[in-house]
């Protein structure tokens, strides 16, 4: 099976992959958002597994969450309460939105996994004090992992992990670029599966498969260039159908600003100096997600830059029902429509 199929398969069936890992004796930690310092988990020799949540019947979550909760949070709770995550040794909750924050409480009080950690990062990423605090949070998380699993995580292991993640991110970005330039046979849906798959499979294997994939691709894209070039903006996209729908409508997602897309791979970590400081720097400086604050115009400006850089003709905002974040973001973008070639939502 070629690497592309492996990514597709595991993005579609993360539980199957995780059970296989568990059978081989691997410790697995589930996590929720791209602000989780998974580089540290990986450095601890633990497998970080991104949790996307059940998409089917989430009735079991009804006893804990109101109907007006987003599908991601409901789905994750459903998965853990129904025993579908029986392979997990624990979970890590970064501080993102109000819903994830409460999911953390509900999870902690209703599950009994070996490890549990809240990683309460700052929301404000503009000051030296917040950078310092962020770094301290990462150090605390490292020691939580060490205590929780009775291990030590030496700096060298963190450095090696950083290298792996840099390799993953570099390849992902290269694959995205090739697609945007129409020099790749991969579709936008393939890229989405590749990014999600990279959050599921062993990171060292992911790094080498991605490098192979990037090297193999030479064929020009199958698109004929007549489709409209659009950018997909939102939190998480785990619905392959969306890409099919967009394609059928005569458009191609040439770039995105998604937690399961460019926000995952933008920004490399310095491989020099103290590895925790380097990690903190990436989290402090990377393009923010809507749950954080950089400047009041930063996110909108980033969207403008991305759309110009990739020749985007339209933007599609993907909003998960009941999520407040994209709502405000969409508006911040709309308040500057003159910057845009074309806006659609």
């Amino acid at each position, binding site marked *: 099976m070629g690497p592309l199929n492996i990514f597709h398969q595991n993005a579609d069936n993360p539980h199957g992959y995780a059970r296989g890992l568990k059978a081989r004796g691997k410790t697995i930690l589930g996590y929720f958002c791209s602000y989780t310092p998974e580089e540290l988990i990986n450095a601890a020799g633990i497998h970080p597994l991104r949790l996307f949540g059940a998409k089917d019947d989430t009735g079991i979550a009804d006893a804990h969450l109101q109907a007006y909760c987003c599908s991601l949070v409901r789905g994750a709770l459903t998965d853990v309460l129904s025993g579908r995550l029986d392979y997990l040794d624990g979970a890590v909750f970064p501080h993102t939105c109000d819903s994830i924050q409460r999911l953390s*409480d509900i999870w902690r009080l209703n599950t009994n996994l070996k490890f549990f950690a809240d990683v309460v990062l700052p929301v404000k990423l503009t000051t030296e004090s917040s950078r310092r605090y962020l770094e301290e949070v990462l150090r605390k998380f490292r020691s939580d992992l060490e205590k929780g699993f009775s291990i030590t995580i030496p700096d060298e292991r963190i450095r090696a992990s950083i290298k792996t993640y840099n390799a993953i991110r570099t390849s992902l970005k290269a694959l995205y670029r090739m697609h945007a330039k129409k020099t790749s046979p991969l579709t936008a849906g393939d890229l989405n599966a590749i990014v999600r798959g990279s959050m599921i499979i062993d990171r060292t294997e992911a790094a080498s498969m991605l490098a192979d994939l990037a090297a193999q691709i030479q064929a020009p894209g199958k698109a004929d260039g007549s489709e409209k070039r659009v950018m997909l903006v939102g939190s998480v996209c785990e619905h392959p159908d969306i890409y099919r729908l967009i394609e059928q409508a005569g458009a191609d997602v040439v770039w995105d600003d998604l937690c399961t897309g460019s926000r995952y791979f933008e920004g490399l970590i310095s491989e020099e100096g103290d590895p925790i400081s380097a990690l903190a720097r990436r989290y402090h400086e990377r393009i923010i997600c809507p749950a954080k604050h950089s400047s009041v115009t930063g996110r909108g400006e980033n969207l403008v830059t991305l759309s110009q850089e990739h020749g985007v003709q339209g933007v599609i905002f993907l909003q998960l029902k009941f999520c407040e974040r994209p709502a405000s973001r969409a508006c911040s973008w709309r308040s500057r429509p003159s910057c845009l070639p074309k806006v659609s939502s």
Partner: protein
Amino acid sequence: MSTPEKDKTRKFRAAKRMREIMTEYYIDAKSAVQTGRKVAWITSGGPVEPLIVMDVIPVYPENYGAMIGASHMGGDLCSKAEALGYSTDLCSYARADIACAIENGGPIGGLPRPDMLICCNNICGTVLKWYEIHARYFNVPLFIFDTPFCHTEFPEIARRYVRSQLDEYVSFLEGVCGRPFDLEKSREVGALSLQGQRLWQAVLDTAAHRPAPMTAFDAFFFLALIVTLRGTKTVVDFYQELLAEMNERIDRGIWAIPNERYRLLWDNLPVWYRLKWLSETFEAHDACLVADTYTTAWCGSMKYIDENNFFDSMAEAYTRIYLNIGIDEMVKTIYTMIDKYEVDGMVMHSNRSCKPYSFGQYDIQKMIQEHKGIPCMVIESHMTDERSFSESQTATRIDAFMEMIKQKKG
């Protein structure tokens, strides 16, 4: 139902004074441009004391949101915000306030334009985006006071981070106001703030008396001052007066619900556009909502305030407020209230607007039923958007709930 004469004696003298104070306050705020004072918009849980020290007039979009809700303008304003592209899932305070700012509409002809924005995320993450939108719209400086969420603890690293932001806040204010921060005045304001909070708690505590001289609906009304003018002498004087009136009522036997039989606890924000209806519906069952978790939140972190060092202790007091802690921490406060006010049941407002307040309520409900053995009911709404409220469904639920309490209590 009570007779009109009874209604008359049950009216609070202090209500008139409170309206006067609020009117003066809004007149002051709206004439700030003429008087040369600065106006800051600030979130309801934000550290207001430094603004008072700097003689900046604090204005609260959330207090205004309550006003919008109570005057039944929420639905219309929210729909205007939706037309601008804001989702119906967004907090109805935020939707209504954004619509007001852009339309220059709403009660009292809109809020005075801010010179600066102070956003503290100890209540939710929504305010972060809401204030960014205002910062872009009004093009004024924004200060974010970041209070890390305390699920189970307040770690030392968080304490240091928040403490350093107090200094950054002061520098920000000095920069915007163009004058230095007065430390001496800061001590006075701190003392007044603490005194105000103590008095507010004492007012709420009078409802521990059986029967209670006030209800949570009264607390929702009288709350406005501790929110908006905390740290001023006006607040201290007013709550002293209100406390005296409460004690006088106890002495004279004037009870909020004439035939109080059942005592209930309210959770979450009020349903602003149905206060009267809810209060009458419960009263018809001889049920008094004696306390609530919402108004208590403005005196709930007094235990973290150091009287001799108010400024430094703001770091902890503002971080460990009711909405910024884990649900197992929240429920401890609820247990204390259940005991203190001798409560027979709990009414939970599942508020679509406020996810940090509402998610976790079902678990809290279960814990209360297990540990305190009292029944709980859930009412659903968007606290300022009346389009989301079903009166008949709520009435049916209240009837069933009261039936359960009656059976239990006899």
